[in-house]
């Protein structure tokens, strides 16, 4: 292990060390301050004589004369063990609770390795989250990466906690674990999750990594990678089904920008580095199933869209990598609808793999498509009726308008502790579709109309009589 006292320049989080030899790219270093304090860092660029080190944490207190740099001879690795479940760690992977140190079973590079596309297995198991807008309209499957696009001030944390609490694959009792990575969130938000995990008993099955808002921002680059290394280890070496929750990816990207600026790199869109897509993909792509392994990693990351803007680079690049997105909308929240999921821009790309007769129900695809189309029509008509008035609309149009309202009120809205089964959700969907004239139901199969719509009607003669009266 070599130690150098030849720091020549300090700029932001970067330290330039001269006269080094035998240093490898990506190596971890320890910077020892005059006061004896130690900080960790990583080699970002190395040539024959100069190494550029990125320090995790602040560079305050480092000086060219009194500080030294020790090269540890290995890249960033994390010690892994199943004992990590039930424990709380810092963003750098050090225990934060009062428990004992982890005795690692093995150590792995936190950057992981790309999964061979040939070795991947297609995700196929339906995860029931108990949230109608997700289960019916944007189905989550095991091994998927599905982020929540939120904006500040919305209850995305409640929704994430609800999903963590309720998510299950029906008919199986397989080992399930949660890996939670807090990236630059506030104490308050972190303690909300901790309380919720404790109360529901989820804590025992969770490994929690906390990088809070007042922790060094450079560490935010590390935290999700440590968490995902743990997730991959639990999934692929211990056959567990892991739900990895990362919040908030916006903070991660801000850190990335900060570091890129300190390195004086050519900025891309809005100052974010040009390689942000590649960098984000090395996080998001660490989800999935692998042939011959039982375990899976499902990723649910949360990001807040700056300025409520879906085209901002952070949500934009994320959307290009992840397999869909759940978008929360401020206007639904204002109408006091929880969860404020706006289904129109939301999407689950793997939905068709997880639904259907053997997985959910035969009518799932049709009902979902029909509700999408009808809700989109209803929303368009809403803006039209604001201009011309409801009277100017045709009778059919008014039915669509009513459908859109009822959809938000009955289908989207549900309690934070309400766990709806997929059957309940789909039946609710049929109930709402019955508001529309039957010839408009082009997306559902005729036999399903007969089975689910008319089948229901016979059972519930009374509630069906109502809308007919209101027509007047």
């Amino acid at each position, binding site marked *: 292990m070599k130690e150098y006292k030849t720091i020549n320049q300090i700029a932001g989080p970067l330290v330039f060390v001269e006269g080094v030899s035998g240093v490898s790219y990506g190596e971890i270093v320890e910077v020892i301050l005059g006061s004896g304090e130690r900080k960790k860092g990583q080699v970002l660029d190395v040539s024959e004589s100069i190494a550029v080190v990125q320090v995790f944490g602040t560079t305050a207190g480092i000086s060219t004369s009194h500080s030294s740099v020790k090269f540890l001879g290995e890249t960033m690795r994390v010690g892994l063990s199943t004992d990590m479940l039930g424990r709380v760690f810092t963003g750098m992977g050090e225990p934060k609770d009062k428990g004992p140190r982890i005795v690692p079973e093995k150590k792995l590079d936190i950057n992981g390795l790309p999964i061979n596309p040939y070795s991947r297995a297609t995700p196929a198991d339906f995860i029931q989250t108990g949230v109608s807008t997700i289960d019916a309209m944007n189905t989550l499957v095991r091994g998927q990466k599905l982020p929540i696009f939120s904006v500040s001030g919305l209850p995305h944390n409640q929704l994430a906690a609800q999903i963590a609490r309720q998510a299950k694959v029906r008919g199986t009792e397989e080992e399930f674990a949660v890996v939670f990575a807090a990236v630059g969130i506030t104490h308050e938000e972190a303690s909300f999750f901790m309380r919720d995990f404790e109360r529901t008993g989820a804590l025992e099955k969770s490994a929690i990594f906390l990088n809070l808002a007042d922790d060094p921002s450079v560490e935010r680059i590390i935290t999700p990678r440590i968490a995902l290394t743990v997730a991959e280890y639990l999934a692929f070496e211990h056959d567990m089904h892991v739900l990895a929750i990362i919040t908030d990816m916006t903070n991660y990207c801000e850190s990335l920008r900060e570091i890129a600026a300190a390195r004086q790199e050519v900025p*891309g869109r809005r100052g974010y580095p040009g390689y942000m897509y590649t960098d984000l993909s090395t996080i998001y792509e660490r989800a999935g199933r*692998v042939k011959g392994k039982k375990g899976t990693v499902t990723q649910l990351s949360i990001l807040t869209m700056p300025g409520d803007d879906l085209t901002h680079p952070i949500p934009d690049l994320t959307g290009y990598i992840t397999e869909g997105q759940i978008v929360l909308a401020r206007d639904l929240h204002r109408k006091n609808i929880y969860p404020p999921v706006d289904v129109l821009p939301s999407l689950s790309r793997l939905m068709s793999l997880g639904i259907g007769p053997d997985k959910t129900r035969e009518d799932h695809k049709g009902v979902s498509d029909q509700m999408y189309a009808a809700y989109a029509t209803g929303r368009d008509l809403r803006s039209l009726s604001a201009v011309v008035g409801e009277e100017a609309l045709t009778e059919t149009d008014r039915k669509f308008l009513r459908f859109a309202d009822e959809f938000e009120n009955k289908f989207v809205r549900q309690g934070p502790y309400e766990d709806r089964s997929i059957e309940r959700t789909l039946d609710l969907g049929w109930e709402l579709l019955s508001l529309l004239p039957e010839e408009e139901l082009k997306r559902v199969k005729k036999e399903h109309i007969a089975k689910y719509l008319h089948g229901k009607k016979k059972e519930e003669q009374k509630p069906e009589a109502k809308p007919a009266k209101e027509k007047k």
Partner: protein
Amino acid sequence: MAKKGTLKRISGPVVEVKDLDDAKLYDVVRVGEEGLVGEIIKIVGGTSVVQVYEDTNGLKPGEPVENTGQPLSVELGPGILRNIYDGIQRPLKDIEAKSGYFIRRGINVPPLPRDVKWDFKAKVKPGEHVKMGDVLGEVQETELILHKVLSPYEGKILNVKSGKYTVEQEIGEIEVAGKKKDLYMYQKWFVRTPRPYTEKLAPLIPLVTGQRVVDTFFPISKGGTASIPGPFGSGKTVTQQSLAKYSDTEIVVYIGCGERGNEMTEVLTEFPHLKDDKSGKPLMERTVLIANTSNMPVAAREASIYTGVTLAEYYRDMGYNVALMADSTSRWAEALREIGGRLEEMPGEEGYPAYLARRLAEFYERAGRVRTLGSDERYGSISIIGAVSPPGGDISEPVSQNTLRVTKVFLALDASLAQRRHFPAINWLKSYSLYKDSLDEWLRANVSDEFPGMRDKAMELLQKESELQEIVQLVGPDALPDREQVILLVTKMLREDFLQQNAYSDVDAKASFKKQNLMLKSIMTFHDKAMHAVDIGVQLKRIQGVPVTAAIGRMKEISEAELPKFSELIKEIESDFAQVAKK
């Protein structure tokens, strides 16, 4: 081999090497103790700048670097089809065998299987004089594809024998300018050099994709180029995959360039189960996949496009029609940008290198229908369909704009259509095809004389609809005159019953030109009859209520075998309107 150079500096995927012997631009080098694959992209004095196709973590200055003296090349020969490669033609299946489900670095596996014996049937005789590109013999590569072994030289065949060979065993000898050379079933080709052909031909034959909105309104020609820009979630990949599945080409090259791992897996698991229409054999038998997912090394992503198009050219040279899908060219451009940034090049627009436009144009120029080399008359084509992922869906950015300049078909994907589950979400007002007119002759001869006219009429109606919609937004639909309300009725049919196509339905996923013609004819007949009805004073309500609309709504589900049903449908339209007119 030449003297080894030493590593001088490492910065991400770009490394500097000093004293590399005989360094030429684009030579492939082996970097470090592990022998990571890299390519020289810049030479400054005694220093070579190398982009490394693998992760560079842990490399140290001082490690050796070896020059192979060869530019990046691919192996062309039997065994390409059914394979899945990474960006520099390493078979992912063999990588799995060596390193498990994670891709470790420094793995060296040959692109073509070395242990498979192929049954080679010679087509030339000793003593015969062959030109470059002449067929030396044939190999049944997969159940669907007959692989033609092409001569890489011009000369006199000394001997050649049919039999079972591996790719490394010689199949014969040839005398080239007085020198004896061995012949093999495979050859190497530099990926950045286009393969030669005799002549390029005009785009007169359509690529039949089975997608109504494409074939009818925005046709792509065989040998044509098309771009599909769209924001995320607008169905780029589903559209690309549909085109790959149903296009009438013999070979499909699918490049997953910087995209999702699970998507490639989907293609990998789905294609072996999908049956080719003509033969009933799995689609995989005529497909090769190049997968360089977003988290795989970025330099290999840059190379993947060239690897793919070179493989496509090889099959074109055998006389096949090839469809090349590149998903997504934006990720490729970003790889260029990332590497350009590491080289500290002066950036052009939005940080992309100034040579982005040239590189894009060079790539799309490798498409085309050609008369191949060789003395027999062979025609082959490469149609390139490139997806573009513009940030925020805004196509004013450089990659989209430069792509639009070179591609002839523009299929504009629209997020708002996707949100209302109108698939394929191709916006009919913004898209265009510059092949439309040159293909009309083929359409008249092979589909129907009236087809081009009907198509133009339908497009006119759709244009008109968008104008009418603006008025409706202001005053409501009832304020429009009857004729215009009929237009809205017909265009709704065009949108819902013609343009929309369900990729997940067995019957509807693909429509032949015949079916497209009949569907369009049904709607246009409806239009003419309805207009006539308005003219003779039939009430609008009655026109809107004709029962046959429901049947038109379900005409998608008429299978190719039951096409005569359409004449019944058209009769039904006529009789329904006759009824309406009577009352």
